[in-house]
């Protein structure tokens, strides 16, 4: 395949992934019953649901000793069932009800914003030189695809793995991408360095837009200005202390997704709860986001404990709903369990 055809295939894969997230977002959407759904919020919710679902299926697959092929069939079947359920539950509002109106903003500014977003994605996907694979995520994917196993072949040496460290056992966010590679035939390097990096960037921008949209009283022009400023600052401030540093150097890693997508989605969720403290769907999303944090990166499990408490406590105080405090332990229980497991166990047997 030529470079252009490979790139086109990668773009198509990215679009399909976003579509999958959009449909999966209908399972646990941000919007409460009767509320108009947002495309961006639905995609972000779908990303979390998909990550958690694949994580659970992967852990089952490892414990049952499934081959990668069998796991792919299982995961694809389960995802299709969930997507079908989402379409049935949300039809016809899944396409009609999502708000895509520009609402009082100049088309030229929207075009500028789209250009800024597209240039960020293009920079990530096309121009940015290789920055290695320090976490050996891509190497693990390649090894799994070669050996048709899930984490049983060590990358590099090719030896059979009999036990893994707790962080490596639970951080399995890349299994969705392995599944995509298995189905589409894309090379893991293309999937991660091109598709995943661009999709993470798009998700990050969607979450940021919706945060500004909710903060500035659902004003589209103000939200668009906020997104423009955030994108500009992200592109022009490269530090390890801001998520943009990780996003624009290793955008395919779990750490980049955690910092750029999951943490902003946490803020978005608390804003949704601030608007409507009785929104059970947003609460459910917050609870399962803890598992998504574990799946993305082990350090995310540790950070999540503090971040969710720091974000939920002000909402409880502002909305005067102490019952929201229960969201903190509910969301933190899985990350806390994984951390305790890591403190007590050295390795988890996998074979």
């Amino acid at each position, binding site marked *: 395949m030529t470079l252009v055809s490979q790139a086109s295939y990668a773009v198509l894969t990215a679009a399909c992934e976003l579509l999958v997230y959009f449909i999966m977002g209908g399972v646990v959407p941000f919007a409460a019953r009767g509320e108009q759904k947002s495309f961006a919020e639905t995609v972000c919710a779908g990303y979390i649901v998909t990550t958690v679902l694949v994580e659970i299926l992967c852990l089952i697959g490892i414990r049952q000793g499934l081959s990668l092929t069998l796991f792919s069939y299982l995961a694809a079947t389960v995802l299709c069932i969930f997507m079908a359920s989402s379409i049935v539950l949300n039809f016809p509002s899944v396409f009609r009800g999502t708000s895509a109106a520009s609402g009082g903003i100049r088309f030229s500014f929207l075009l500028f914003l789209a250009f800024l977003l597209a240039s960020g994605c293009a920079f990530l996907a096309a121009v940015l030189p290789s920055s290695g694979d320090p976490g050996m995520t891509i190497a693990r994917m390649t090894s799994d695809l070669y050996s048709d196993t899930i984490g049983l072949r060590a990358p590099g040496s090719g030896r059979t793995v009999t036990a893994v460290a707790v962080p490596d056992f639970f951080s399995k966010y890349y299994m969705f991408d392995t599944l995509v590679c298995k189905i589409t035939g894309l090379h893991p390097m293309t999937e991660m360095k091109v598709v995943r990096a661009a999709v993470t960037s798009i998700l990050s921008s969607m979450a940021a837009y919706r945060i500004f949209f909710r903060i500035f009283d659902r004003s589209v022009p103000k939200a668009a200005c906020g997104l423009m400023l955030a994108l500009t600052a992200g592109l022009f401030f490269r530090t390890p202390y801001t998520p943009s540093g990780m996003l624009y150097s290793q955008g395919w890693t779990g750490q980049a997704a955690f910092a750029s997508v999951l*943490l902003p989605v946490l803020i978005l969720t608390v804003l949704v709860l601030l608007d409507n403290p009785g929104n059970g769907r947003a609460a459910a999303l917050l609870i399962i986001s803890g598992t998504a944090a574990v799946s993305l990166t082990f350090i995310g499990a540790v950070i999540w404990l503090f*971040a969710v408490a720091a974000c939920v406590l002000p909402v409880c105080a502002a909305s005067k709903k102490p019952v929201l405090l229960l969201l903190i332990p509910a969301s933190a229980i899985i990350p806390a369990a994984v*951390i305790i497991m890591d403190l007590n166990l050295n390795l988890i047997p996998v074979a």
Partner: protein
Amino acid sequence: MMYAGAVLLILAAVFGGRKMRCAFFWPFILLALTVFNPYVFPILFIEQQGLVAQYYSFLWAVPVLLAASAGVLAVAFRFKKRWISAAIIIASAAAAIFFGTPEVSSYVDIMLPVNAMKADAELVTLCGYIMDHSLSESPLVAFERADFAEEAMAYDAAIRISGLLTEEGGEGDGGLHFQGEDYVVIGMGSKETEELLKEAGYHSIAHTPDSRIFVPES
């Protein structure tokens, strides 16, 4: 930049509404009192977990860029005249562009990738030759360049990577401790390593502009 972000965070709290305070200001205060508090830090399990080197990651929980953008907008939209609001926003964007450390300038030579995997073209050539030439399904290959070894693991799982040419493989005594490597890839200028390989019975069979491939005589 962090100080500027903190100032803008405070602006967001003062000029922003309840939502901005709940989203940015109060979480920052709570994190400052706990995770970023040097008196509380020792009683957390961060040291026991061996996460001190990754402690900087906790700063991601503070959405500095989002809060800074929100703070700027909160100030800008307080003015009724649109041109003043626009000027403040444009000035902030310009400040970010001129005073930041852009991703673009951090790479001296920006090149379009030659393949969709964004893999080094030379590595792709080397791995392709090795897999075409090898009689083994999974040859053991030693790379002199550590980045090639890392990328080869991601590019082709059939290639097993040897630590022969790393400090570990050499064990610091200047010699090479072979483990039955099927191929050894060294740079064009590595004369000392080439001598050691020839003494061990390896000979060159192919080369790229920057690398040579050695195989054992047998």
